[in-house]
């Protein structure tokens, strides 16, 4: 199980992957938006998205979980 976390305070602009999706290293899971910049959050390994912790419009803090990949 790998937890992908937010690197900074941001708004969740787009949720790209959904629970049950098979993802590979480098795939975009979510696109965050902070200070008018889009910041893609990428998978750091292959696996299945077992849990998506955020929804579009959420605000995440630095270190908050974004997705769990199993």
């Amino acid at each position, binding site marked *: 199980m790998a937890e992908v976390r937010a690197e*900074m*305070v*941001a708004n969740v602009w787009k949720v790209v992957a959904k629970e049950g999706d098979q993802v590979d290293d480098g795939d975009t899971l979510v696109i965050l*938006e*902070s*200070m*008018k*910049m889009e910041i893609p959050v990428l998978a750091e390994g292959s696996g299945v998205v077992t849990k998506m912790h955020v929804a579009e419009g959420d*605000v995440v803090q630095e270190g908050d979980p974004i997705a769990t990949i199993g």
Partner: protein
Amino acid sequence: MGIRAVAVYSDADADLPYVREADEALYIGPSQPARSYLDAAALIEAARKSNAAAVHPGYGFLAENADFARQVIEAGLTWVGPGPGAIEQMGDKIRARNLMEQAGVPVSPGTREPVTDVAEAVTEAERIGYPVMVKAAAGGGGIGMGAAADEAGLRSAFETARSRAERFFGSPAILLERYVERARHVEVQILGLADGRVLALGERDCSVQRRHQKVAEETPSPGVSASLRERMLAAAVKAGEAVGYRGAGTVECLVDADAGSFVFLEMNTRLQVEHPVTELVTGIDLVEQQFLVAAGEPPSFDPGAIHPAGHALELRIYAEDPVRFLPGPGTITEWDEPAGDGVRVDAGYQAGNTVTPFYDPLLAKLCVHGADRAQALERARDAVAAFRIAGPKTNLAFHADLLASPDFVSGDYDTSLVSKLRPR
């Protein structure tokens, strides 16, 4: 000036110093820009409630929105800015380019009609010649802009530009123009007076950019000779006259310093973030002139006696890491501004404030004025070293590196400077 100031704020900005500094402040909605600062009806309602006589749109959000300007005027308020017609003509970058070409202002080879599909973009790029710059016709702020060296690069840049253009500017129209490599980004400050005359108040060099957004500016430009300056200022006046411009505006150009030539890039129909450097060398308060022009009054200075003196720099202090320039919002635990001869700090924050992810990362403008460039650089170095901010990430360390870099210090630099200082 004896004018009472009414400010507006969203949830995110409720605790910021400007809200208390204003004579009156009105809440206009939630933090998301679309529900507050971009909500024209809420803004006009706030103006009505506070019995305001005029609306100054600042330099973000709706400042270059012709529809908003029109709504302000229709509500019986004075719009502190150029007429909606001028905003519209300059807001569409394709129309603006065509208009400038007709007015005799040099433009680089580019598209005269909006490009909406990728096949057409490929044909146009071949006609113009690579490398090309791809950007949103209705865009601004560097958003969605990208350079392409070949067809593959163009296809990808076009898709990015088109999706951003739709999302941020509500129009998919794309503009292509020849990309000038090793160019300096130099803009001319203009002021359209109430009597119809258009003045040029000198240039600003804005070549220090990351992600096509400005990080530091200076005036005069070390890359502009006296004869080039004369031609650029004359062209900027022509540009303003072509649209009957009133108030403060900026004509942005790309300068090829080696060739001593320039082309028109775009016009910003508003006050610019970096206007303080022009104020520091000319002694002219540009915001005061904006209000005087809007009131139909003459400027506070003699238009025949504009004598810029010394050298001025602006360093944008951003809430971002100083290496990758990624956003770093957070709560400010320490905020200690530098002071001293020739130092001016225009800040939006103080200790205890929280920098949120909702808006652009600008925390403060650190501006310095010196008798010459060497003195301005020295004062800037001292001021950067003395500025203490703790909590959010800041780019102060980047500015220290910039002010120590031989390329910047020599004055011989172009828009590639930041990527040289921060190679990936």
